[in-house]
């Protein structure tokens, strides 16, 4: 078991030794219990010396006091064992989730893993240590006590007890398998029910209630079957307890007359039964519920954490000294799966240093894929992408990518701005803020040292911060992937012009066609044959580009205009261009609602 090995390997030696050492005083009460009862009866109460009997009982209280000191220290040491283990798990979960997300595998479960699952493992890990250690301590103590009361009784009691424990341990693997199956069905049920119940409105609108109910009914029944299968393991556990906990008692009673004939006293027999009923049985029952309950939870949950946090990363490419930052794509083909239509097919593109390129096309056609390819976040199925002669992605410092969803973290404004260039001076930072048009925002937030709460910023404000940060970065190659989509057209123009004036290459995945007009060259992606050219050239030769451009500019129905400089007369619906000629069209964004849409 992977999880079990991991848990054992994580046990630190020194705290563990301290734990074992403090277990000795903790074991004192269970070791003395039977002896004290036997002596109190035989040499005290039955011998007509009640004071001696009471004194032996006093010894028990004393032992409980010593045991309490032991127990207290044991739990403090337990923290020394468990806390580092939890730290390790948190590191794994965080590191794994980050690396997966960075590798483009979003992971919705990471936060639940961090808060719920890690805690389950922490609690059950501690619980397991407590239970196993407590069992060993009690059994050793009781065995020593039994032997000192009368070795022959010890020999009668211990074999069935050991047999019961061994039988229980032998069933653990089987029980774990069933438990795991139950957990799996439980998760499948939650996932399916979650998906279906989130879509009740949609199901009802479609009249597919029966279909949806049947989708959930399957997992419900599987889950019930898995739970019923657990009934067998519960019964098996009860049998093991009967052998380990009750059989010793029956054996001692059956052998009673024979023992008495051999000279054993009432106190000795009472002492022996006391060990069975008051020490061994509770220890065994705690072991069973501990291993069977938290032990299985531990293994199952830890397994899940370890699996989910394992990241298969290709070995990081060795940094290669790039010469410059010209971008060269040769014969690039990219598809999201072996059976999928390619998003890009055999694309050639050369961007000399200092170029300004806009990429336009309908949503979902592969514009963001282009950005990821140029930045080395995705690898093409065939062809090569070189930046400064080195494979894209080898030199992260060469380029900066700002995606549509700008990343702003809780920290000060300055910390956020310095993210890509920690050493920048205040003057440089202020210049960058000014350049992209973020001064008003920074002032409103309360200046450079003011704290930023990402969830209190609008999407556009987050984009402004990300833009200032990118402007400030030393990277000569800047890729804006719809990075200004939440800004209004005027603010977008300010930011884009700032980047165009900045030294280096600029690639803009255009959200509005106006972005394209500002670029030196434009790449039109239509899913079939990419077309590269200037605004004027494309307007004259590329019908899709013409349509995109026309869509944005002519029909301004309700007054507002993205490019107030170019008002156009309204166009009546009857004046629609020939639709069948359109293959793909200019995307609009939900954020644009209320903006005019041309007809």
């Amino acid at each position, binding site marked *: 078991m992977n999880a079990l090995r991991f848990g054992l390997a994580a046990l630190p030696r020194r705290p563990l030794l301290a734990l074992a050492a403090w277990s000795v005083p903790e074991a004192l009460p269970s070791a003395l219990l039977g002896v004290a009862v036997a002596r109190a009866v035989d040499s005290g109460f039955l011998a007509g010396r009640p004071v001696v009997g009471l004194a032996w009982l006093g010894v028990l209280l004393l032992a409980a006091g010593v045991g309490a000191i032991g*127990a207290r220290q044991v739990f*403090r040491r337990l923290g020394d064992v468990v806390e580092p283990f939890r730290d390790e798990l948190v590191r794994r979960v965080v590191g794994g989730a980050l690396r997966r997300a960075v590798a483009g595998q979003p992971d919705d479960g990471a936060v639940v893993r961090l808060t719920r699952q890690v805690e389950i493992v922490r609690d059950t890990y501690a619980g397991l240590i407590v239970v196993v250690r407590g069992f060993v301590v009690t059994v050793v103590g009781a065995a020593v006590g039994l032997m000192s009361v009368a070795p022959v009784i010890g020999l009668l009691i211990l074999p069935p007890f050991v047999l019961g424990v061994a039988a229980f341990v032998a069933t653990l693997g089987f029980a774990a398998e069933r438990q795991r199956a139950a957990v799996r069905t439980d998760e499948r049920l939650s996932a399916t029910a979650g998906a279906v119940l989130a879509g009740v409105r*949609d199901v009802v609108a479609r009249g597919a209630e029966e279909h949806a109910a049947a989708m959930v009914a399957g997992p419900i029944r599987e889950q019930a079957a898995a739970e019923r299968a*657990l009934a067998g393991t519960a019964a098996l556990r009860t049998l093991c307890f009967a052998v380990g906990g009750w059989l010793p008692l*029956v054996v001692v009673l059956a052998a009673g007359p024979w023992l008495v004939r051999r000279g054993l006293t009432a106190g000795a027999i009472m002492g022996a039964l006391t060990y069975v009923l008051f020490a061994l049985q509770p220890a065994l029952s705690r072991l069973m519920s501990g291993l069977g309950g938290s032990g299985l939870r531990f293994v199952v949950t830890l397994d899940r954490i370890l699996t989910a946090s394992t990241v298969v990363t290709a070995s990081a490419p060795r940094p290669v000294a790039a010469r410059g930052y010209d971008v060269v794509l040769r014969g690039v083909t990219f598809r999201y799966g072996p059976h999928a239509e390619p998003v890009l097919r055999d694309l050639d593109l050369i961007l000399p240093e200092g170029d300004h390129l806009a990429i336009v096309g309908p949503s979902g056609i592969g514009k963001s894929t282009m950005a990821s390819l140029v930045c080395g976040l995705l690898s093409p199925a065939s062809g090569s992408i070189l930046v400064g002669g080195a494979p894209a992605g080898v030199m992260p410092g060469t380029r900066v990518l700002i995606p549509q969803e700008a990343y702003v*973290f809780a920290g000060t404004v300055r910390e956020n701005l310095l993210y890509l260039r920690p050493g920048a001076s205040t003057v440089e930072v202020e210049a960058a803020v000014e350049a992209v048009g973020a001064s008003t925002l920074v002032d409103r937030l309360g200046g450079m040292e003011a704290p930023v709460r990402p969830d209190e910023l609008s999407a556009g404000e987050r984009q402004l911060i990300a833009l200032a940060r990118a402007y400030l970065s030393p990277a000569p190659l800047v890729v804006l992937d719809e990075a200004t989509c939440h800004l209004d057209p005027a603010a977008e123009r300010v930011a884009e012009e700032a980047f165009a004036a900045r030294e280096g290459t600029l690639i803009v995945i255009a959200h509005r066609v106006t972005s394209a007009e500002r670029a030196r060259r434009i790449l039109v992606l239509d899913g079939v044959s990419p077309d590269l050219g200037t605004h004027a050239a494309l307007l004259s030769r590329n019908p899709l580009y013409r349509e995109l451009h026309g869509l944005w500019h002519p029909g301004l129905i309700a007054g507002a205009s993205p490019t107030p400089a170019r008002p156009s007369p309204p166009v009546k619906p009857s004046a629609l261009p020939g639709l069948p000629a359109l293959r793909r069209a200019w995307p609009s964004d939900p954020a644009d609602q209320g903006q005019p849409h041309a007809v």
Partner: protein
Amino acid sequence: MTTASFGAVARRGGRWLPFVAVAALSGTAVTLALPAVLGRAIDAIVAGGGSGTWVALAGGLVALGVAGELLGAYAGTITVATAAAWLRERLVRHVLSAGRGVDAGDLVSRVSANAVDAAQAGPTAVSVATAILPPAGSLVLLTLIDPWLALAFLCGLALVGAVLRAFTRRTAEVVGAYQRAQGRIAARLTEALGGARTIAAAGTTEREERRVLAPLADLRAEGERTWRVLARSSGQAAAAGPLVLVAVLAAGGLALAAGRISAGDLFAAGRYAVIGAGLGGLTGTLAGLARARAALHRVGEVLARPTIQYGPAALPPGPGRLEFRGVAVRSGDATLLDGVDLAVPGGAAVAVVGRSGAGKSVLAAVAARLRDPDEGEVRLDGVPLTDLSHGALRAAVGCAFERPVLIGGTVADAVGLGLARDRVRGAALATHADDFVSRLPLGYDTPLADAPMSGGERQRLGLARAWHAERLLVLDDATSSLDTVTEMQISRTLTADGRGRTRLIVTHRAATASRADLVVWLDAGRVRAVGSHAALCDDPDYRAVFV
């Protein structure tokens, strides 16, 4: 039965529940009888001769106890599994037939967690009924052996209670601080995961990892505090543990020395002291009962929601004429729609426009019978929607949403929801969803989880899902994330497909309104005007709707 009563759930456990009760009762009897029998057996053994009966009796009791345990463990698990499955199926079906107004996350917790807790109703009722017996019986039996024993027992118990009091309060406080530290890490992780693409491009993964993990030291410190608190209370528990037993043994020892009781009685007394101290376990049983009741209440709340009732009628042939007659919809004190009278000619495309909160989506929901009006009625080709059978209504009317929720294993399942594959493909072609679905790793067989989609792509699938509708398509802002040309192409397909379906299109876009045959302008729940877009455009208030 609309609610889940305790008894109903308990009965649903099926034929195994009586066995749970039998097992619990026999277990109690064994627990109480065994110490006394063991005491007698010890006395008989020590006295020599004649011990056979008592030993055999003890052995028999042990065997009975084990058999009871076996039965109880088995029957309890089966009962709960059966009742939980029954409750879950009912919950899901009920929610589906009740339709709107549900919070999915909350419902999932009711289906997955509360249903199991509620299913415990039968077994917990049994354990509560029997749990009081061993401790109470022990006290009685102690008194019977020697009244002083009972007194010693109660004194010991009082001592233990005094020692263990302050424990839960301290724990709660420390655990709160610990969870806050944990929350700080979780918040940072969430942020960083949201910015994964930026981080990937900047190559700052390690720096982010350090930033997220910065509060880990606090977590460690708070964690260590929890262990110190636990250590203190464990120490107290270990010190207080044997108090009851020692008190009873001391009183019993003196009685033994005085000749009032036998050695066997003393042994039995010690055992009863331990069973009696199990009184603390009773709170756990009662808590279980309280949990089952609370869970039943949560389950019952869902089952008490009214379901949509369908009529028996089929639709006569017709063009898809849609009429609203005096429709009013209220929610609490708020009036969402008021006095809406509308007649939409069959086959027309009607845009519904208005500011946010004007009642557009409510009108759409009423038209698709996702919600019934509080006053008035809606008719399709002359038949009130409420008279239509489930099959007739849903075959005639389809509805697509601004944020469609896609359900199913694969993209094809999500669009089809039980429909044949060729119809799925046809609908996807018509709504231009085929363009991007064919680029997914496994095309139509791509699992939904592996098909990250933009809002516009989801909308196209949502439209495809509603495409089957025969007479009326209600589009509730269902193309808002589409690029304008795709939207136009889809609306062309709608007009040109020859099926002449009536379309009710809620929209924020002037362009969409301008293409419609008729525009219904809603304002504060009332119809402010009906007319062509061009005619309405003269009103500046109307134009302001689109800004």
